[in-house]
């Protein structure tokens, strides 16, 4: 559900929604879940926002949907590995 929610929220705010990819990486960095969201390089500014504001908003909403589970979100462009 978290992957799908993040994908929806991000697709709605970028210019290239079809380039948005979200996947979950579990347990790689301590407890909790890491969601990795990839966007078109030209949309990076949009998902991060001024002074990281949009990234913070996405983390806040996903944190609320996850309840007591810890969630991390990493933002990458589609070419990063």
């Amino acid at each position, binding site marked *: 559900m978290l992957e799908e929610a993040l994908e*929806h929220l991000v697709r709605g705010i970028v210019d290239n929604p079809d380039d948005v990819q979200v996947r979950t990486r579990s347990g790689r960095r301590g407890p909790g879940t890491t969601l990795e969201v990839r966007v078109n390089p030209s949309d990076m500014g949009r998902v991060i926002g001024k002074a990281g504001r949009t990234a913070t908003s*996405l983390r806040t909403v996903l944190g609320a949907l996850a309840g007591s589970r810890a969630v991390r979100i990493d933002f990458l462009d589609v070419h990063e590995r």
Partner: protein
Amino acid sequence: MTDDAAAQPASNATNLEREGDIAADYLEALLDIADLDGDIDMDVEGSRAVVSIVGGDLSALVGDDGEVLDALQDLTRLAVTREMGERSRLMLDIAGFRAARRAELSAVGTQAAADAASRAEAVRLAPMTPFERKVVHDAVAAAGGRSESEGEEPQRRVVVLPPE
């Protein structure tokens, strides 16, 4: 308000309705994905679209002090802005949180106006967001008082002045 209306293009009301529609679609899909119950109401207040999610247990989407609500409003505005091509000032409310906060702030403003008059001294209130300060200024004015803002964001606050 009249000046405002005159300065706006004639299509403004239609645009605000469209903002509400885009926001409602964005939020409705999120509620579906998260399996949360909620109905979406749309309204236009002055020159801004207001979208409210009501019903069900929505406390998770409000968060402490409306923190999640503010984040969701931020994202919803961005989604609307992307579709409309111009910046959205849309207001999102969830479970009546903003409405309740507004009533509370209004009462604070009314009380501060009375205190400033009875003590004949300025009453300085706690720091607030621009939206919160506006509600307080309006309540003070409605009570026949005067107020101004002082300080820098995010510590900017309303000061209610004693009668002249």
